[in-house]
């Protein structure tokens, strides 16, 4: 259906009429029961299902515009002695495209990779308990490891806003029966002052796998494949020993700086590497607390911070932009 041609033709004919009767003829031609517009409506039923909706909407729009042109022309004809025509209200914009948020897009890119490896996805509460957010991750009360995360409390000390996606992991371990694999993005909260570089709300991406023969090699192989998928085969990933209470052994993940390729620059603060997240083999105590026998089952878990990653990818300089800030989408970027 060439609607724009129909609209242009209607506009031309309507503008050219000199009398009310001619205008009525044109109206019947386009909008009458057997008119061009109704004929076009009838053709919609033959379109593929996925096109019907849009075609209907667009045709309605054309119909409305023709009605407006006729109405305006009627008013013109009512005013004798004037040969020139007043402006016709004629707003036209390219159709507005919708967009997903960059965090959603990035999380989905990662999820696509994990789905290809048979992972499900998962979710859990944002208002959590100390039990699931800390104790079941092998972080007892008053443990110095708690300093790694400043917590926002709803009811101190028991009810809080989850500080890490690992809180979903503890729910998953408790609820599901192994073997299982799941990967998920999650909003997390830390009690930090909001400014250009820090936010009290940000996003983690976490993956968990529990099976009988999970090893560090599986974990490192999976992470390497993920980073290659996201950054290309040339990406250099570094795995180093790091302490996280919920895993043993624990790993820190760094990738060679995109900007300086490991030589050291302002982006990587001179160290040549950019820290991407943490990982490890799930601590036997964490499995036991969830009712999973660590003598039979083993698992890996890893978590990545999404926000800085997204900021680099979308060239966003202020972390506040990501959440309800100045992020907007060009309506019809090709």
């Amino acid at each position, binding site marked *: 259906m060439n609607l*724009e041609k129909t609209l242009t033709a209607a*506009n031309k004919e309507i503008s050219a009429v000199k009398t009310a009767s001619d205008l009525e003829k044109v109206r019947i031609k386009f909008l009458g029961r057997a008119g061009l517009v109704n004929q076009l409506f009838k053709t919609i039923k033959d379109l593929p299902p996925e096109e019907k909706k849009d075609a209907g909407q667009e045709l309605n729009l054309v119909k409305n515009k023709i009605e407006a042109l006729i109405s305006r022309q009627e008013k013109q004809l009512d005013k004798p002695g004037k040969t*020139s025509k007043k*402006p*016709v*209200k*004629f707003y*036209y*914009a390219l159709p507005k*495209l*919708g*967009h*997903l948020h*960059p965090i*959603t*897009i990035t999380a989905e890119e990662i999820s696509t990779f994990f789905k290809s*490896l*048979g992972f*499900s996805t*998962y979710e859990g509460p*944002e*208002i959590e308990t100390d039990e699931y957010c800390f104790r079941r991750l092998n972080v007892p009360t*008053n443990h110095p490891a708690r300093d790694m995360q400043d917590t926002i*409390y709803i*009811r*101190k000390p028991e009810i809080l*806003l989850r500080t890490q996606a690992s809180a979903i992991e503890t729910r998953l371990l408790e609820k599901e029966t192994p073997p*299982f*694999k799941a990967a998920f993005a999650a909003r997390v909260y830390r*009690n930090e*002052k909001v400014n250009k570089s820090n936010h*009290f*709300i940000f996003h983690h991406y976490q993956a968990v796998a529990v099976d009988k023969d999970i*090893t*560090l*090699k599986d*974990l*490192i192989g*999976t992470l390497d494949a993920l980073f290659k998928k996201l950054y290309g085969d040339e990406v250099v990933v*570094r795995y180093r*020993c*790091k*302490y996280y209470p919920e895993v*043993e*052994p624990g790993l820190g993940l760094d990738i060679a700086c995109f900007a300086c390729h490991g030589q050291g620059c302002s982006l990587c603060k001179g*160290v040549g590497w950019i820290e991407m997240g943490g990982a490890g083999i799930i*601590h*036997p105590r964490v499995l036991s607390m969830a009712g999973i026998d660590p003598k039979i089952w*083993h698992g890996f878990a890893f978590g990545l911070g999404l926000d800085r990653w997204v900021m680099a990818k*979308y*060239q966003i300089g202020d972390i506040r932009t990501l959440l*309800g*800030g100045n*992020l*907007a*989408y*060009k*309506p019809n*970027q*090709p």
Partner: protein
Amino acid sequence: MKIIYSEIKKLLPGLNQPVKKLVQDLTLIGHFVDGLEEEGNSVVISLEVKQNRADCLGYWGVAKDLAVLYNLNLEEPKIDLPNITGQKALPIRIEAQKQVTRVMAVKINHLNNQPSPKWLKTILSLHDINSINTLVDLTNYIMLLWGIPNHAFDARKSTDNLIWETNQGKFDHFASFDGTKIALEKGTLQISNGKEVLSLAGIVGGQNFGVSLNTKEAIVEMAIYHPTRVRLDSKSLKVVTEASIRLEKQLDPELVPTAFNHLISLILKHCQGKVASSIFNYYPKEKKLSPHTINFNPKGPATIAGVNIDEGFSLKTLKSLGCLVNQKEKNSWLVVPPSLRPDLELEEDLAEEVIRFWGYQNIPTDQPISAEILPNITPQILHFIEAAQNILVNLGYDEIRSWPLIKKSQFLKAHFLPEEAKAIYTQNNINDHYPLMRASICSSLKIQNRQYQKLKIPQRRFFEIGKIFYQNEEQPQERWSLGIFDQSAKKLIRKMKQFYHDLGIKPPEKISIVKADGGAMMEIDLNQLVKNLSRIPKITITKSPQRVDQAAQELTGQIVDLDANLIFSQEKDPRELIEEYQAKFDPDILWQLVVLDFYQEEKVYKYTLRAFYYNCSAKVAKKTHREVFGNLGAE
């Protein structure tokens, strides 16, 4: 923790790795190097010490790891201590026995305390510690070397009657060595002389009892406490020091005599003086670390890593770390970790030790987890959310994500929440303007709409899917909610009918919308809606920009709109007109181009185009406008 290359080399004379290699290796075995500085002839390496490796808050612990890594001999500093016998005992009392693990103390008289020698000043300066005088500087030096904090009192001011006790309310304030006044709390661990508080144990010394150049008699003490006590005191009093950072972790009480003797020997050497008391040594039997034995299968590290790690390498590594290793039976060894390493509790901890020295970098990177399909455990709501957001994108809506914490004035309650639902407040959010959890996505939509209005964004049409929060009978609850905003109420209703249709659900007879500033919005309970679905349709995004990263923009200021009147002798197709002119712009500043008006007079066709400019000044926008449209560009 900083280490000076030349200082660690004194403990490892065979160390000859270039600094760059040393830095890489330290990072790989778990001591992340986050800084490297050259100051004069010294190289200073900054380490991020793992939370469970308190032993590495001193040179000794780091040197032990390097000795294992490079197979080097570790040389203990030479300690020349005279034989101390027959002296009178100090009248020290340990009353807080539950909180104190070990204390060693001694009195030294006839001191000749001087400004520090250059070598000592340099070391402390490289560690960002101010030099005070030789005796005080030596206490800091020993803390850096062995990782165990210690303190010296001027005995003429403090008296010899030191008491380790918890504050029972007798003392209400304390002035630290730098004059800071600290209000004391009941239960704080302190050292007093019965009349005054001399120091907050494990945290900071007092103003009136410190050692100065005039000090002739000093009591030197080194102690280890229950880490939780120090941590709680440090947090509640809001005082964090080099000492408290170390003592809130589990330090090795067995290392105290060596470090203490080293300190005394250095004081006698550099400040002269004579030992005037016997050595006080509180270390009751029940506080002594009982060596714990771990059953260890030397094949374990290979099983965990998934690679072939030689059993001999496993056992050799553990021995080098100071573990006692004895074979129990085939594939089963009994391992007793050294007291320096309280973090080694389980067989998995031992395996990690072996693997980190074997090298994570030696594990193959090309073998990901098997792609075997396991049962799908994805909750239905997540499938549903994906379908819902894709439908909305296809309908031309943009996804936003916003803060679930809001101001009181922004609070709204979703229409589907129970009447008795109450707001949830946070208790300690330091961003105290945002104390409330949102109970309606509409709160977030309104905030975003206001922001978009400020930025003068045309065609505001957006949605958010997220959690909303409330409490029922004191229990926090959360639900998934969808909120949609459109500048046109009619369009919103029409699009929502389409939304329901695409989900395969009959739309409600009346779609309720709420008026918003410059538009309308609505909210849907997704947890409820998903229950109405017999199956969740698979929806893909059919209309999407090719480069989403170029569509999403961080706006740095308001959008500037300028009009241009164009005159043609022929009628134009509006789409072609927009596309023709769009191509003339720098895409980095053109947000959108629309035909705003059309006017025909005889054979003259006039079009008004409106150009929206972003992330540029009004001046740049006007200049660009003139360049593209010439004189037809009207401001």
